[in-house]
Protein backbone atom coordinates (compact mmCIF):
# COMPACT_ATOMS: atom_id res chain seq x y z
CA UNK A 1 0.00 0.00 0.00
CA UNK A 2 2.82 2.40 0.91
CA UNK A 3 4.44 1.65 -2.45
CA UNK A 4 1.28 2.57 -4.35
CA UNK A 5 1.04 5.78 -2.33
CA UNK A 6 4.65 6.57 -3.27
CA UNK A 7 3.91 5.95 -6.95
CA UNK A 8 0.96 8.29 -6.66
CA UNK A 9 3.07 11.08 -5.16
CA UNK A 10 5.73 10.71 -7.86
CA UNK A 11 3.05 10.76 -10.57
CA UNK A 12 1.50 13.89 -9.08
CA UNK A 13 4.85 15.68 -8.95
CA UNK A 14 5.65 14.64 -12.51
CA UNK A 15 2.31 15.83 -13.91
CA UNK A 16 2.68 19.15 -12.07
CA UNK A 17 6.14 19.55 -13.62
CA UNK A 18 4.79 18.86 -17.13
CA UNK A 19 1.91 21.27 -16.57
CA UNK A 20 4.31 24.00 -15.43
CA UNK A 21 6.59 23.55 -18.45
CA UNK A 22 3.77 23.46 -21.00
CA UNK A 23 1.88 26.41 -19.56
CA UNK A 24 5.10 28.43 -19.52
CA UNK A 25 5.83 27.75 -23.17
CA UNK A 26 2.30 27.76 -24.64
CA UNK A 27 -0.11 30.10 -22.84
CA UNK A 28 -3.60 28.60 -23.08
CA UNK A 29 -5.89 30.04 -25.71
CA UNK A 30 -3.48 32.62 -27.09
CA UNK A 31 -2.51 32.87 -30.72
CA UNK A 32 1.18 32.09 -30.51
CA UNK A 33 1.88 30.65 -33.94
CA UNK A 34 5.39 31.38 -35.09
CA UNK A 35 7.74 30.27 -37.81
CA UNK A 36 6.81 27.28 -39.87
CA UNK A 37 3.44 26.74 -38.13
CA UNK A 38 2.39 30.25 -39.11
CA UNK A 39 3.45 29.55 -42.69
CA UNK A 40 1.30 26.40 -42.81
CA UNK A 41 -1.78 28.19 -41.48
CA UNK A 42 -1.35 31.19 -43.76
CA UNK A 43 -0.42 29.44 -47.02
CA UNK A 44 -1.65 25.85 -46.62
CA UNK A 45 -4.93 26.27 -48.48
CA UNK A 46 -3.33 28.39 -51.22
CA UNK A 47 -0.43 25.96 -51.77
CA UNK A 48 -2.25 22.65 -51.82
CA UNK A 49 -6.00 23.32 -51.93
CA UNK A 50 -6.83 21.17 -48.92
CA UNK A 51 -9.27 22.71 -46.44
CA UNK A 52 -7.98 20.50 -43.64
CA UNK A 53 -4.52 21.95 -43.07
CA UNK A 54 -3.47 19.10 -40.75
CA UNK A 55 -3.90 16.73 -43.69
CA UNK A 56 -1.76 18.92 -45.91
CA UNK A 57 0.99 19.00 -43.28
CA UNK A 58 0.93 15.25 -42.66
CA UNK A 59 0.86 14.12 -46.29
CA UNK A 60 2.78 16.74 -48.25
CA UNK A 61 4.75 19.20 -46.13
CA UNK A 62 5.88 16.45 -43.76
CA UNK A 63 5.34 13.55 -46.13
CA UNK A 64 8.69 11.98 -45.39
CA UNK A 65 7.75 11.63 -41.71
CA UNK A 66 4.58 9.85 -42.77
CA UNK A 67 6.69 7.38 -44.75
CA UNK A 68 8.65 6.69 -41.56
CA UNK A 69 5.41 6.22 -39.63
CA UNK A 70 4.12 3.72 -42.19
CA UNK A 71 7.43 1.87 -41.99
CA UNK A 72 7.28 1.69 -38.19
CA UNK A 73 3.77 0.25 -38.39
CA UNK A 74 4.87 -2.32 -40.97
CA UNK A 75 7.88 -3.35 -38.85
CA UNK A 76 5.84 -3.77 -35.68
CA UNK A 77 3.21 -5.83 -37.47
CA UNK A 78 5.90 -8.10 -38.93
CA UNK A 79 7.62 -8.43 -35.55
CA UNK A 80 4.34 -9.38 -33.87
CA UNK A 81 3.57 -11.99 -36.53
CA UNK A 82 6.98 -13.59 -36.13
CA UNK A 83 6.84 -13.49 -32.34
CA UNK A 84 3.47 -15.21 -32.26
CA UNK A 85 4.60 -17.79 -34.79
CA UNK A 86 7.06 -19.33 -32.33
CA UNK A 87 4.67 -19.76 -29.41
CA UNK A 88 2.55 -22.83 -28.96
CA UNK A 89 0.44 -21.98 -25.93
CA UNK A 90 -2.88 -23.60 -25.19
CA UNK A 91 -5.37 -20.90 -26.02
CA UNK A 92 -8.51 -20.13 -24.15
CA UNK A 93 -11.40 -19.83 -26.56
CA UNK A 94 -13.71 -16.84 -26.64
CA UNK A 95 -17.22 -17.43 -25.27
CA UNK A 96 -19.75 -18.45 -27.89
CA UNK A 97 -21.56 -15.46 -29.45
CA UNK A 98 -25.28 -15.19 -28.95
CA UNK A 99 -27.76 -14.75 -31.79
CA UNK A 100 -28.07 -11.03 -31.09
CA UNK A 101 -24.31 -10.52 -31.24
CA UNK A 102 -24.00 -12.50 -34.44
CA UNK A 103 -26.80 -10.71 -36.29
CA UNK A 104 -25.89 -7.27 -34.97
CA UNK A 105 -22.24 -7.69 -35.90
CA UNK A 106 -23.17 -8.82 -39.39
CA UNK A 107 -25.29 -5.71 -39.99
CA UNK A 108 -23.04 -3.20 -38.21
CA UNK A 109 -19.67 -4.14 -39.71
CA UNK A 110 -20.36 -2.94 -43.29
CA UNK A 111 -21.62 0.39 -41.95
CA UNK A 112 -18.45 0.84 -39.89
CA UNK A 113 -16.34 0.05 -42.96
CA UNK A 114 -18.33 2.66 -44.88
CA UNK A 115 -17.58 5.23 -42.18
CA UNK A 116 -13.87 4.40 -42.39
CA UNK A 117 -13.87 4.78 -46.17
CA UNK A 118 -15.73 8.09 -45.86
CA UNK A 119 -13.17 9.37 -43.36
CA UNK A 120 -10.15 8.60 -45.50
CA UNK A 121 -11.74 9.74 -48.77
CA UNK A 122 -12.72 13.10 -47.22
CA UNK A 123 -9.38 13.51 -45.44
CA UNK A 124 -8.65 16.79 -47.20
CA UNK A 125 -12.09 18.27 -46.39
CA UNK A 126 -13.12 17.04 -42.95
CA UNK A 127 -11.25 15.91 -39.81
CA UNK A 128 -9.66 12.51 -40.05
CA UNK A 129 -7.55 10.94 -42.73
CA UNK A 130 -5.81 7.79 -43.75
CA UNK A 131 -4.71 6.53 -40.35
CA UNK A 132 -8.00 6.93 -38.46
CA UNK A 133 -9.95 5.67 -41.49
CA UNK A 134 -7.84 2.55 -41.73
CA UNK A 135 -8.13 1.96 -38.00
CA UNK A 136 -11.92 2.25 -38.19
CA UNK A 137 -12.00 -0.34 -40.97
CA UNK A 138 -9.85 -2.65 -38.84
CA UNK A 139 -12.34 -2.07 -36.01
CA UNK A 140 -15.11 -3.41 -38.24
CA UNK A 141 -13.07 -6.58 -38.73
CA UNK A 142 -12.52 -6.75 -34.97
CA UNK A 143 -16.30 -6.71 -34.56
CA UNK A 144 -16.62 -9.57 -37.06
CA UNK A 145 -13.84 -11.56 -35.35
CA UNK A 146 -15.49 -11.21 -31.95
CA UNK A 147 -19.14 -11.68 -32.89
CA UNK A 148 -19.14 -14.30 -35.66
CA UNK A 149 -18.88 -17.95 -34.75
CA UNK A 150 -17.10 -18.80 -38.01
CA UNK A 151 -15.24 -16.02 -39.75
CA UNK A 152 -12.34 -16.89 -42.00
CA UNK A 153 -10.05 -14.40 -43.72
CA UNK A 154 -7.35 -15.54 -46.11
CA UNK A 155 -4.04 -14.08 -45.00
CA UNK A 156 -2.81 -13.74 -48.59
CA UNK A 157 -5.56 -11.21 -49.37
CA UNK A 158 -4.48 -8.95 -46.53
CA UNK A 159 -0.82 -9.25 -47.47
CA UNK A 160 -1.44 -8.45 -51.14
CA UNK A 161 -3.61 -5.41 -50.31
CA UNK A 162 -1.01 -4.10 -47.90
CA UNK A 163 1.94 -4.65 -50.24
CA UNK A 164 0.12 -3.08 -53.20
CA UNK A 165 -0.95 0.01 -51.26
CA UNK A 166 2.47 0.44 -49.66
CA UNK A 167 4.42 0.21 -52.90
CA UNK A 168 1.98 2.51 -54.73
CA UNK A 169 2.47 5.03 -51.92
CA UNK A 170 6.23 4.99 -52.41
CA UNK A 171 5.76 5.22 -56.21
CA UNK A 172 3.56 8.33 -55.82
CA UNK A 173 6.30 9.79 -53.63
CA UNK A 174 8.96 9.04 -56.22
CA UNK A 175 6.87 10.62 -59.00
CA UNK A 176 6.70 13.71 -56.82
CA UNK A 177 10.45 13.56 -56.38
CA UNK A 178 10.89 13.47 -60.16
CA UNK A 179 8.51 16.30 -61.05
CA UNK A 180 8.65 18.70 -58.08
CA UNK A 181 12.08 17.86 -56.64
CA UNK A 182 10.71 16.80 -53.28
CA UNK A 183 9.61 13.39 -52.05
CA UNK A 184 5.79 13.25 -51.97
CA UNK A 185 5.63 16.69 -53.58
CA UNK A 186 2.31 17.70 -55.09
CA UNK A 187 2.55 17.18 -58.85
CA UNK A 188 -1.18 17.52 -59.67
CA UNK A 189 -3.36 20.61 -59.98
CA UNK A 190 -4.81 21.74 -56.68
CA UNK A 191 -8.30 22.44 -58.01
CA UNK A 192 -10.99 24.38 -56.18
CA UNK A 193 -10.67 24.19 -52.36
CA UNK A 194 -13.65 22.47 -50.77
CA UNK A 195 -14.47 20.07 -53.60
CA UNK A 196 -14.04 16.32 -53.34
CA UNK A 197 -11.74 16.26 -56.38
CA UNK A 198 -9.19 18.81 -55.25
CA UNK A 199 -6.04 19.17 -53.19
CA UNK A 200 -3.78 17.37 -55.70
CA UNK A 201 -2.29 14.13 -54.44
CA UNK A 202 -3.68 14.27 -50.89
CA UNK A 203 -6.81 12.14 -51.60
CA UNK A 204 -4.69 9.62 -53.53
CA UNK A 205 -2.16 9.29 -50.71
CA UNK A 206 -4.84 8.95 -48.08
CA UNK A 207 -6.67 6.32 -50.13
CA UNK A 208 -3.48 4.25 -50.22
CA UNK A 209 -2.64 4.83 -46.55
CA UNK A 210 -6.19 3.91 -45.55
CA UNK A 211 -6.00 0.58 -47.35
CA UNK A 212 -2.52 -0.12 -46.01
CA UNK A 213 -3.31 0.66 -42.36
CA UNK A 214 -6.64 -1.16 -42.52
CA UNK A 215 -5.23 -4.39 -43.93
CA UNK A 216 -2.17 -4.25 -41.66
CA UNK A 217 -4.13 -3.88 -38.44
CA UNK A 218 -6.62 -6.51 -39.58
CA UNK A 219 -3.66 -8.84 -40.02
CA UNK A 220 -2.58 -8.06 -36.45
CA UNK A 221 -6.05 -8.92 -35.16
CA UNK A 222 -6.09 -12.13 -37.19
CA UNK A 223 -2.67 -13.12 -35.86
CA UNK A 224 -3.69 -12.45 -32.27
CA UNK A 225 -6.91 -14.39 -32.66
CA UNK A 226 -5.55 -17.41 -34.47
CA UNK A 227 -2.14 -17.58 -32.86
CA UNK A 228 -0.03 -16.61 -35.84
CA UNK A 229 0.08 -20.01 -37.50
CA UNK A 230 -1.22 -20.36 -41.03
CA UNK A 231 -4.70 -21.87 -41.37
Amino acid at each position, binding site marked *: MIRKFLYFVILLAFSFFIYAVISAYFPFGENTLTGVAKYYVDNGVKDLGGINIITSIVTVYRGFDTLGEVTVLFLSVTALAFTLLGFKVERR*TLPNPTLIMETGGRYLAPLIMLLGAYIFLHGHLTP*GGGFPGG*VIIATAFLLLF*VTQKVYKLRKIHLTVTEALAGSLYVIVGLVGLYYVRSFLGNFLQTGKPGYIVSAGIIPIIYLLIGFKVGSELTA*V*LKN*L*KEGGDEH
Partner: protein
Amino acid sequence: MSEAVIILSIVLAILVVVATFVLWLTKDLLVAVLASAVISLVSSIFFLILQVPDVAITEASIGAALTTGFFLFAMKYIGRNEDD
Protein backbone atom coordinates in the same frame (compact mmCIF):
# COMPACT_ATOMS: atom_id res chain seq x y z
CA MET B 1 -16.86 28.34 -23.28
CA SER B 2 -20.40 28.25 -22.01
CA GLU B 3 -21.36 27.11 -18.53
CA ALA B 4 -22.80 23.77 -19.69
CA VAL B 5 -19.53 22.82 -21.36
CA ILE B 6 -17.55 23.64 -18.22
CA ILE B 7 -19.85 21.53 -16.04
CA LEU B 8 -19.61 18.67 -18.57
CA SER B 9 -15.81 18.96 -18.53
CA ILE B 10 -15.67 18.76 -14.75
CA VAL B 11 -17.92 15.68 -14.69
CA LEU B 12 -15.81 14.02 -17.39
CA ALA B 13 -12.57 14.88 -15.59
CA ILE B 14 -13.88 13.22 -12.42
CA LEU B 15 -14.82 10.19 -14.54
CA VAL B 16 -11.27 10.00 -15.93
CA VAL B 17 -9.75 10.13 -12.44
CA VAL B 18 -12.11 7.43 -11.16
CA ALA B 19 -11.38 5.21 -14.18
CA THR B 20 -7.63 5.70 -13.64
CA PHE B 21 -7.91 4.56 -10.02
CA VAL B 22 -9.98 1.55 -11.08
CA LEU B 23 -7.36 0.69 -13.72
CA TRP B 24 -4.61 1.02 -11.13
CA LEU B 25 -6.07 -0.88 -8.21
CA THR B 26 -7.99 -3.72 -9.86
CA LYS B 27 -6.68 -7.29 -10.04
CA ASP B 28 -9.00 -8.29 -12.89
CA LEU B 29 -7.44 -7.62 -16.29
CA LEU B 30 -10.80 -7.39 -18.08
CA VAL B 31 -11.85 -4.55 -15.77
CA ALA B 32 -8.49 -2.85 -16.36
CA VAL B 33 -8.87 -3.05 -20.16
CA LEU B 34 -12.39 -1.61 -20.02
CA ALA B 35 -11.23 1.17 -17.69
CA SER B 36 -8.49 2.16 -20.14
CA ALA B 37 -11.10 2.19 -22.91
CA VAL B 38 -13.23 4.56 -20.80
CA ILE B 39 -10.22 6.85 -20.28
CA SER B 40 -9.58 6.99 -24.05
CA LEU B 41 -13.22 7.63 -24.88
CA VAL B 42 -13.55 10.46 -22.36
CA SER B 43 -10.28 12.05 -23.46
CA SER B 44 -11.55 11.99 -27.05
CA ILE B 45 -14.53 14.05 -25.85
CA PHE B 46 -12.01 16.40 -24.21
CA PHE B 47 -10.16 16.76 -27.52
CA LEU B 48 -13.47 17.64 -29.17
CA ILE B 49 -14.13 20.32 -26.53
CA LEU B 50 -10.61 21.70 -27.12
CA GLN B 51 -11.40 21.87 -30.87
CA VAL B 52 -9.00 19.26 -32.23
CA PRO B 53 -11.42 16.92 -34.05
CA ASP B 54 -8.57 15.13 -35.89
CA VAL B 55 -7.01 13.96 -32.65
CA ALA B 56 -10.46 13.16 -31.23
CA ILE B 57 -11.24 10.78 -34.11
CA THR B 58 -7.85 9.09 -33.79
CA GLU B 59 -8.09 8.74 -30.02
CA ALA B 60 -11.61 7.32 -30.20
CA SER B 61 -10.81 4.80 -32.93
CA ILE B 62 -7.37 3.67 -31.77
CA GLY B 63 -7.53 4.14 -28.01
CA ALA B 64 -11.10 3.18 -27.30
CA ALA B 65 -11.82 0.57 -29.97
CA LEU B 66 -8.76 -1.08 -31.47
CA THR B 67 -6.46 -1.20 -28.44
CA THR B 68 -9.28 -2.73 -26.40
CA GLY B 69 -9.58 -5.44 -29.03
CA PHE B 70 -5.82 -6.09 -28.97
CA PHE B 71 -5.84 -6.43 -25.20
CA LEU B 72 -8.90 -8.68 -25.26
CA PHE B 73 -7.21 -11.02 -27.71
CA ALA B 74 -3.96 -10.86 -25.71
CA MET B 75 -5.91 -11.95 -22.63
CA LYS B 76 -6.63 -15.22 -24.42
CA TYR B 77 -2.93 -16.02 -23.96
CA ILE B 78 -2.24 -14.75 -20.45
CA GLY B 79 -5.53 -15.29 -18.64
CA ARG B 80 -7.83 -12.92 -16.85
CA ASN B 81 -6.26 -12.59 -13.40
CA GLU B 82 -3.01 -10.88 -12.54
CA ASP B 83 -1.87 -13.78 -10.34
CA ASP B 84 -2.23 -16.49 -13.00
